[in-house]
């Protein structure tokens, strides 16, 4: 055999390797497993193509070698080997077919091999036993952008020229592996980055095999350099994704777990382990499996229930969910929601259970608190001594409290569907016919305007009795101000209404009684006022008669007495007309009156009594006093009453100290009148205005109450103040009359 013939097997071996690598890269499949068989078949079927068959054998050997010597990932290497064989098969098949065509040009094969090598999407190289490159495929040189000479060992150095193109971070590792292979003859296999001509580094897998002669001596090295940059990136992405997934498992705010088909705990997420302080390994099948895990974690009171559930669902492969208490690492039991579902294979067999477990203790407590609060609120609504209605924005009732339901005898569902709205139907049923129109109008206005509603009306009770109630409603609005609901309370004010009626009647009776009492006092006063001048008239007329009857008649004195008779008779007539005026005015409408005048008249009315009781009455009337709107007689009554009270208070005082001071002045838009005495003062300033409160043995206790109601009916106020020194001061105000137009 010529040297050329001798080189053929080596070239074919290299060829099969290169092609296999290319196919693996292109397909990633395991077709290469078929390669040895294919090689044998081709050998037998195309005897003329022995060269090609030799190539298949080399490929098969390479596969065996790679598969046998791979130190790392067997599967990976086997797959790669298989790809190599598949490639060899396809290429050899082509070669064999060419050979079978009988063109007899066996010498064409090596040239084809070089051509094929150099057209492969991979780089190839050959080196001598010392590791010096004897061949570098043009693709590699083009990639590197460097002539082959640059890869040769550097002069005066241990280093190879390709140091410059290997990534500095990878170089030490690469050169160590290469030197080790050179020294031992072991296959060389390294992944590292190579610098492209444009300076970009890409990952490559560089693999080489020693070629030995018959004596087993290494005669050279052949290898491929395959661009694996994309695979590397994919791997990195995969690693990143796996990392993210595991981070996800760890970061999910819940406890994830995985169980074997029989329930044996296989995996607890990191959070779960931290929470319970028990890793899944504590509950292997040997250590009791799921039962042990459940017994260790579940609250004794819930245990039976949980165990029953698991016994039912796990063998049946049914997803399960349970809420129960579990013991945390710190020994406290907390409510957890646990659920799991099985993952099945295509045949439906359970592969694993995946489950999640949440601490819902806080949520349960909050829910419980909310439920409790809601219960409380409903209880509040239903036990309030008021009837409550909630209505939609259009007024349709949507809720009635228990009290109202009991009162009416029906709930919100009672009406409707007969053409009327539920609101109208309810109103027509429940509201007293006399109040219905007004209630409806008020409702309509409130619903239209959103204004709060308030009204008293009669409401029909379940027994048919109408009772007075007071209803008040106000709208509930959302953040945007739109009405979302009307809330209405309804209070039974029947008792109150009756009490008010009774009070009104009592007040009327009292007013009548006090009128009668004042009338008695007044009539005594009138009698005195009139009888004095009449007595004088009678005495004078008798005297006059006597003077005239005397002999001789005393005309001088008769005249004098006659004049006195006239005078006193006029005085009596004045009293009578004044009293008549008093009563006739009491029926007049209120008008603006001169307060000073009214005070003077009151003083005149009481003057006789004051004199009799030794009380001086002093007046301090401001000059600029405005007129006040009043019922003259009523205000006189107030004044007389206050003056008389003051006199009563001074009954025990020494005669010289008995004085009443009446002062009047303008104050804001009112006239302020003060009546002060020098009595003992007032012990109970607030109570004295109460009806029937009296400090006097014979008083009815009505005077001040009447005075106050008179003053207040005038729009004024009546109160007491501490006097200067001893004594009491009663003060009242009356609104000033509007100034007459100029």
């Amino acid at each position, binding site marked *: 055999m010529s040297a050329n013939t001798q080189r053929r097997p080596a070239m074919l071996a290299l060829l099969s390797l290169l092609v296999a690598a290319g196919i693996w890269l292109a397909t990633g499949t395991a077709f290469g497993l078929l390669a040895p068989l294919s090689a044998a078949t081709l050998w037998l079927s195309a005897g003329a193509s022995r060269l090609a068959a030799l190539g298949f054998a080399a490929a098969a050997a390479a596969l065996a070698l790679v598969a046998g010597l791979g130190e790392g990932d067997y599967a990976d290497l086997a797959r790669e080997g298989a790809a190599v064989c598949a490639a060899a098969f396809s290429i050899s098949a082509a070669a064999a077919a060419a050979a079978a065509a009988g063109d007899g040009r066996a010498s064409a094969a090596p040239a084809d091999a070089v051509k094929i090598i150099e057209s492969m999407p991979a780089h190839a190289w050959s080196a001598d036993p010392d590791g010096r490159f004897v061949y570098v495929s043009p693709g590699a040189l083009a990639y590197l952008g460097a002539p082959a000479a640059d890869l040769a060992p550097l002069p005066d150095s241990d280093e190879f020229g390709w140091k410059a193109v290997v990534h500095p971070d990878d170089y030490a590792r690469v050169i160590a592996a290469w030197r080790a292979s050179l020294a031992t003859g072991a296959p060389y296999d390294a992944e590292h980055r190579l610098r492209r001509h444009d300076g970009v580094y890409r990952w490559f897998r560089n693999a080489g095999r020693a070629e030995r002669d018959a004596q087993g001596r290494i005669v050279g090295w052949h290898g491929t350099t395959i661009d694996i940059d994309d695979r590397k990136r994919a791997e990195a992405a995969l690693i990143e994704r796996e990392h993210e997934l595991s981070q996800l498992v760890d970061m999910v705010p819940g406890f994830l777990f995985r169980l074997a088909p029989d329930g044996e705990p296989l995996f607890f997420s990191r959070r779960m382990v931290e929470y319970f302080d028990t890793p899944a390994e504590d509950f292997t099948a040997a250590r009791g499996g799921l039962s042990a895990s459940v017994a260790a974690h579940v609250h004794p009171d819930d245990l039976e229930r949980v165990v029953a559930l698991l016994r039912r669902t796990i063998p049946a492969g049914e997803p399960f969910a349970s809420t129960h208490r579990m013991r945390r690492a710190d020994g406290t039991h907390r409510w957890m929601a646990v659920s799991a579902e099985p993952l099945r294979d295509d045949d439906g067999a359970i592969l694993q259970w995946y489950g999640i477990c949440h601490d819902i203790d806080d949520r349960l407590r909050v829910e419980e608190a909310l439920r409790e609060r809601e219960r409380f609120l409903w209880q509040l609504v239903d036990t309030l001594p008021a009837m409550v209605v909630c209505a939609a924005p259009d007024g349709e009732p949507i809720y009635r409290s228990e009290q109202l339901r009991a009162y009416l005898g029906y709930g919100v569902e009672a009406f409707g569907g007969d053409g009327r709205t539920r609101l109208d139907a309810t109103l027509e049923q429940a509201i007293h016919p006399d109040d219905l129109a007004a209630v409806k109008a008020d409702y309509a206005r409130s619903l239209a305007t959103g204004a709060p509603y308030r009204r008293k009306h009669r409401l029909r009770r379940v027994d048919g009795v109408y009772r007075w109630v007071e209803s008040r409603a106000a709208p509930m609005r959302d953040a945007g101000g739109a009405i979302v609901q009307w809330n209405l309370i309804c209070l039974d004010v029947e008792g109150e209404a009756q009490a008010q009626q009774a009070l009104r009647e009592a007040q009327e009776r009292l007013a009548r009684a006090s009128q009668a009492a004042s009338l008695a006092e007044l009539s005594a006063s009138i009698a005195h006022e009139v009888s004095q001048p*009449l007595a004088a008239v009678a005495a004078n007329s008798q005297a006059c008669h006597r003077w005239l009857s005397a002999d001789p008649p005393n005309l001088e004195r008769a005249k004098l007495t006659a004049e006195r008779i006239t005078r*006193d008779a006029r005085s009596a007539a004045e009293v009578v007309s004044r009293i008549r005026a008093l009563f006739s005015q009491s029926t007049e409408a209120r008008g603006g009156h001169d307060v000073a005048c009214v005070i003077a008249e009151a003083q005149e009315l009481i003057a006789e009594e004051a004199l009799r009781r030794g009380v001086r009455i002093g007046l301090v009337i401001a000059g600029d006093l405005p007129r006040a709107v009043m019922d003259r007689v009523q205000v006189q009554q107030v004044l007389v009453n206050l003056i008389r009270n003051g006199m009563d208070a001074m009954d025990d005082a020494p005669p010289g100290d008995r004085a009443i001071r009446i002062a009047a002045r303008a104050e804001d838009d009112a006239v302020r009148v003060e009546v002060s005495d020098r009595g003992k003062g007032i012990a109970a300033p607030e109570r004295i205005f109460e009806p029937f409160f009296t400090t006097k043995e014979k008083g009815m206790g009505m005077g001040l109450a009447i005075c106050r109601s008179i003053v207040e009916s005038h729009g004024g106020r009546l109160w007491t103040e501490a006097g200067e020194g001893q004594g009491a001061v009663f003060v009242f105000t009356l609104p000033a009359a509007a100034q007459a137009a100029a």
Partner: protein
Amino acid sequence: MTGRLVFVVDDDARIREALEELLASHGMRAIGFASAGDYLGADRPDVPACLILDVELPDINGLAFQRRIAAEEHPPIVFLTGHGDIPSSVRAMREGAVDFLTKPFEAVDLIAAVETALAQDRARRAARADRAALRARYEALTPREKEVLPLVVSGLLNKQAAAELGISEVTLQIHRRNVMRKMSVASLADLVRVAERLEIPVSHSRRRKEDEA
């Protein structure tokens, strides 16, 4: 005219004036006072008089005033009132008022009441004067005669009275005659009446003496 004096206490000047005029027309002199205090403070002549008193006086109620002066010598009172009521009038009369008239009153009634009051006052004054004269006579008796008088008016026999005093019957008869003379009485019966008016206690009774005997 000066003999019949009437005091008028009334706070109403018109009434005082009218009463003075009326009384004057009946020949009486009236002196008016506006209050009880004024009346008490005034210098009043000590002659038979009448007091017309208004019940409603500025300083004191007329009835209260009546009670206050009850212990003293005072003219009989005729009350006037603006609004008389029965309890007040009853009380006033019980306390010795002559009349209780309600205004306006009949002049006749008032004058009659005043006349009555004046007569009462005169009579009272006369009685008081008699009593004073008797007292003066009694005071003129000697101590022995003052001892004899009660024994005589007690009805003791001369002999018994003499034994009582430890003197002779003759001496007793001399004292008895002197007493009769000094007391200006003509008979034993008159002497008994005088002793009664002088409120001389009867110290012995003949009956008791007889019992002892």
